[in-house]
Structures are given as C-alpha cells and as structure tokens.
C-alpha cells in the first residue's frame, strides 16, 4: 500500500509524515507524530474525545481523512500551555476540579478554546452548545461548564499555535 506524504503545522511547528490511504488524523497524530493528547473514544464522531482544531476550528480527528490536512494548521491540547504556563482553561479546569478520569479533558479543552477564541465572553448557554458534542461520563458537566465560565473571566481567549 502506497504511503502519501503530508505536511502540516502542529501547534506551530512543521510536521511531515507518511500516511496510509484511509488513515484518520487521530491515528496519524498519535502514532505518526507522537502527539498522544487527542484520545480515541469511538471512531464514530459521537464522543468528541479526539477533538482538535484545524485552522482554528474544532474537528473530530477520528473522522478526518489524514491526507486532507496537508498544508493546514492543527492544534491540540499539547499546544495549549506556553512552556510551564498553563492556558487559562487548563488552570480553570484544575481549580474547578473539572476533570475526574481526565480522558475527555483534552477534547473538552479544544472545544472550549475554540469557543473562547470566537467569543471571549460566552454565556452559560454558549458553553453548553460549545461542548455539546463532547461526552463526559464522570463529572455531570456542571464543573466543566463552570470552569469554562471561570476561564473566560480570567481572559481565556489567548491565541496559540
């Protein structure tokens, strides 16, 4: 099976990988370039744990044909913190105890960061809408919603990658 070269920017740095036909972006990020922050939850587009930003907008990496990202910008949770300085969303998720098992957290953070980039002062309803494609089985969502509200107050709209 022929491999195809794909070049893209991941969290601001240039990546070049060879992908298989039919391979999805989640698999390429995790096994191809070793960014393990997006998680596999369903491969069906129904859980949101693999959410990444492509050109700043949330996408499901499990449903993204890897070769279609050639020349595009991909952002993941690995690019949220600036060195050891956490993104306001990450800090708010910690302060608000918004993660339990932590598995949905990277997807939630990406969905939330896309929201705050677009809307730095979201209402509770806006937040509910923004995370509506992301399943959390532990928290009951309330701590996550509150953390995103807190991050917005703390100036969560910081652009990265």
């Amino acid at each position, binding site marked *: 099976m022929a491999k195809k070269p794909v070049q893209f920017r991941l969290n601001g740095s240039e990546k070049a990988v060879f992908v*298989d036909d*039919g391979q999805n972006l989640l698999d390429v990020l995790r*096994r191809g370039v*070793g960014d*393990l*922050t*997006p*998680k*596999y*939850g*369903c*491969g*069906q587009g*129904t*859980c949101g*744990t693999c959410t990444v930003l492509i050109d700043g907008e949330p996408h499901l990496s499990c449903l993204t044909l890897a070769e279609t990202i050639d020349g595009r910008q991909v952002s*993941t*949770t*690995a690019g*949220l*913190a600036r060195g050891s300085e*956490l993104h306001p*969303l*990450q*800090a708010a*998720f*910690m302060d608000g*105890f918004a*993660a*339990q*098992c*932590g*598995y*949905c*957290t*990277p997807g939630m*953070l990406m969905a939330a960061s896309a929201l705050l980039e677009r809307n730095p002062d979201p209402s509770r309803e806006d937040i509910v809408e923004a995370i509506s494609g992301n*399943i*959390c*089985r*532990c928290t009951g969502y*309330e701590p996550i919603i*509150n953390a995103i509200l807190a991050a917005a107050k703390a100036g969560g709209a910081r652009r990265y990658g």
Partner: protein
Amino acid sequence: MSIEFRKEYFADERDDNLNEVGKPTQRQDALGHVTGRSPYFDDHLFDGLLHIRCVRSPHHHARIRRIDTSEAERMPGVVRIITGKDVPHNLNTLLSLLDFGLDDEPLLSDKKVAYKGEPVAAVVAETERAARDAVAKVRVDWEELPAVFDVEEAVKPGAPVVNEVYPKNLFVYHGRYDHQKLRYGDVEAGFRQADRIIEGRYQMSPIEQAPTETCGAIAAPETNDRYVVYTSTQALFFSLDTTSKLLKTPSNRLHFIGGTVGGGFGGKVDSLHEPMAVLGTMLTGRPCKYIFDREEEMQVGAPRGAERWYLKDGVMNDGRIVARKFVGYFDSGAYTRLSSYAIIKGVGHLPGPYTIPNVYADVYCVFTNRTPATAMRGFGITGVDFAIEAHMDKVAHEVGIDPIELRILNAYRDGDMKAHRRLAKNTALIECCQVAAEKAKWPISQAASQASSLRDGGGERGRLPAHTATDQNGLVTGFTAQSYAKKSRATQPSATPPPQMARHESAPVTPRVEQPRPQPVQPASAPPPPPAATEQRHTRFSSISGLRRR
C-alpha cells in the same frame, strides 16, 4: 449547584482539626489531565505493534460446526489467527480466583456460542484495518439453536440450556440451592398480622458503563522471557491472575502496568483483553493491542445486568412495615462473570435501610442468551434500591402517609437487628432524610424531624426473631460447596486472625466484623482481638484517625 457541609451532625464523633485529611487538596493527577499527559494504557507506543480483532457470533445461540480461517490467513497483513484450541486453559470464571463458581466461559468459544457477539476467533494483523478485513473473511458454519431472553422463561422446564455448566440456567449457591435465600422471622405470619398487603414488580434495565476510554490492553515481550501488559483494568491482579490461569503462565512472568484509567464504572473488571493481548504476543513474538471499539463496548462489553424484583409488603395502617418479601431475578446473560457475587451482596442489603421484623428473599442468578452481565457502580444494590424505594413510595401513597415520614418511621437505627443477623451501628438514614427535606422545604411532622438514628433503636428491635421459617425449596444435587463463603460449624467466622494483626501489633485499624448479638448493649468483644494490644490500638487509632468516640 451548591454544596454544604453540615458539621453540626455527629460532631462529637469527629476531630475536624487534621492537617491534610478534610482539606480540598488538588488532585495528584490534575496537571496530567489538563495537559493531556496522563498516561492511559493506549498512550504507550510500540514499534511493530500488531492489532487484534475478534470474529463474533451473529447468532444469539448456535453450535459451531466448523471455523474456516484459510481465506483470512491469506489476507495481506494477517500475522496469525487464534482460535479456542490456541488458548492453553480455555475455560474460566472470574471469581474462580476466590474459589466461587465453576469455570463456565471460554476465552474463544470453539463448541457453541450463547450470546450474539461472543468471540470465536481472533485475527492478529499489522493494522487494525487489515485485522477487520480478515475478520470478514473468516467463515463459520453455524447451527442455530433456540434462544431464551426472559429470565422467567429461562427457568421454566424445557427452556433452551444456555450454559451447560448450569443446566437449569440457574447458578448454584453453596452447592445446595438454585438461588440465594434470606429467611428472617416468618413473613407469612407477618402478612397475616398486617392491615394491608402491598405488592409491586420492578424491572431494572441493562445499562452500559460507557467509560469514554474503551476497554483494552497492549502486551509486549519483555526481557527475561516475561510479558509487559499496559491495561485499562480496574483490578490489576484480577486481570493478572486471570491471564496467568487462562494462559497457564506463572504470574511472575507477567508484568502488568495500569492505574491510570479513562473511567471504569465496573466495566473494566472482566479481564477479557489482557489474556488475549498476551496470547497474541506469545504466538507472534510481537507487541499486540486488543481494544474494544465503541460498538463492541456498547453491545459486547458486559453491561450492568437487568434485574427483575417482586416485592410484597405487609403494612400496618400507621405505616409500620411488618413483613417484606422479595423474589429477584438477575439476568446474568450467557455466563456467570460477577452476577453470582452481586446477588449475595444484594441479599445482604435487604430489606433496605429499614427495620422490618419479618423478611424473606429468594434471588436467582439466571442465564439467558444475551451479553454476560458484570459489575457497575452500585453493583448488586442499585437495582434493588430502585425497587425498594419505588415500592416505599407506593406504600406511602396507599397508606396515606408522607413518603419521608414513612422512611423515618421505618428507618434502621443504631442497635437494631438487621435481616442478615448483625446489629446496625453507625447509621444515619434519618438525619439524611431530615436534611434533604429541610433543603427542599418539604415539610415533615415534628415527630419525624425530631427522630434520631442514635435513639430508640435496639431493645426489642435488636433481638433476633424468636422463630424463623425455613425451607429447602430449590434444593439441587450434584454440586458441592466451594470454599467461598462456606458455612463452617465453628461459631467464629474465621479461625485465624487477619494477617496484619499477626504481623503488626500497632495495627491502626482493626477490621471490626459485626457479630450477632441477641442482647444489643454496647459492642462487646469484636473478634478476634489480639490480647493486650487492644487498649494501645484504640489510642493510636484515635490520635491518628481523629476519631473521638468509639
């Protein structure tokens, strides 16, 4: 959303001035979670990783005439196809580790399947896609068998036999009965004495644990002829020992690593993935990953099983419940897994947190042609609590008494005798009822709001019933009791003291096994106190644990 700590309750039983305990300390794993760096089992990369996918039964119940893997073996990327004959010890039951229950489930069936989705072969391939493609090429010659899905149908004479190890489709308890019994007092006498009888039937649905991370494991060859296994298990040594048994491999050749898991809720105890991944590695010499996809997690991964409960209460006009009878059916699916255990747990929980002088239960672990059930949050309790509390509401309505007042009236209190014949202590149901009512501004009577778990228990309520009606219904033959929970003739539950007492005189905590105490006064000598260490232990425990009153 609001949360408040009602420190005024039971304040004299606590020391609230500890250094670390009771503090809202940040989680040790929080930074890893928010940076996406917490290492779940699948976050370990291996060069040359192979992928395992299973061939699954499309039928609910069928005999396997033949499995033809020849075409699949020729598919590109296929490294190996595994069938039942490749599994060194292809029969297990999870709780055999506790000597409870008979081996009844193969890792890969080669004779028959008893539920839709049961695995009969596994493909090990270079990519997940190649494994899936090859799975589609495995040909199985099936002979479909009649299936049974309803628990009460399954126990009727002539029903299809789901699980050959238990030909009546019922698990066998203590080598004696086809159900677990609870007999306390005489319910029939209680019903005769009652002003009214209130009955109900309750059905709990099968439920998926649905952790966001699906179940899985990666095995790889390690140096020194060992295998390292990264796993999502909820019980590391359960999975390790199960793997050791199925693969006839000494446990010290297995190195299991886990502990950071993307949710479990009970669904990651079954240890299906670890043995398969290690077997794949043994047969290929390469790292192997076996993980459920979401579809498998939803329908092949074991759910919280369905339960059906029949309740019958004898109630006085003032709301006192004088007799309660349960008949329960746990839908175990095709194999035992953990349902057998959940039933004993559920029976130990009856009749709920209430003091009722006559209690009876017959609870059955039934095999049907569906996905085997397993543990889930509240295992053995959630279903029957639904039944009990829905029933309590019915009783309150029919008797015409406020539902909260009915609970408080019947609530167990310190010193009361429970139906499993141990005294209640450390109870707090009444206080919970009162505080919940207060928060919701639900008015309750003065008597109810002044009741206390600490008062008015014991005495008459602490006595064992003068007479208990017993029977031998459901007696089975051909089974012997295993060591698990085996009734010995000795009066002490255990002849040997627990290991930590033997080893450490300064043990901070004594496991306090409840004992039947026909005369409920102060807790007497808890078994088995090591001589002379008692006083010191209490002191230590108090100072370290912050407990003030014993």
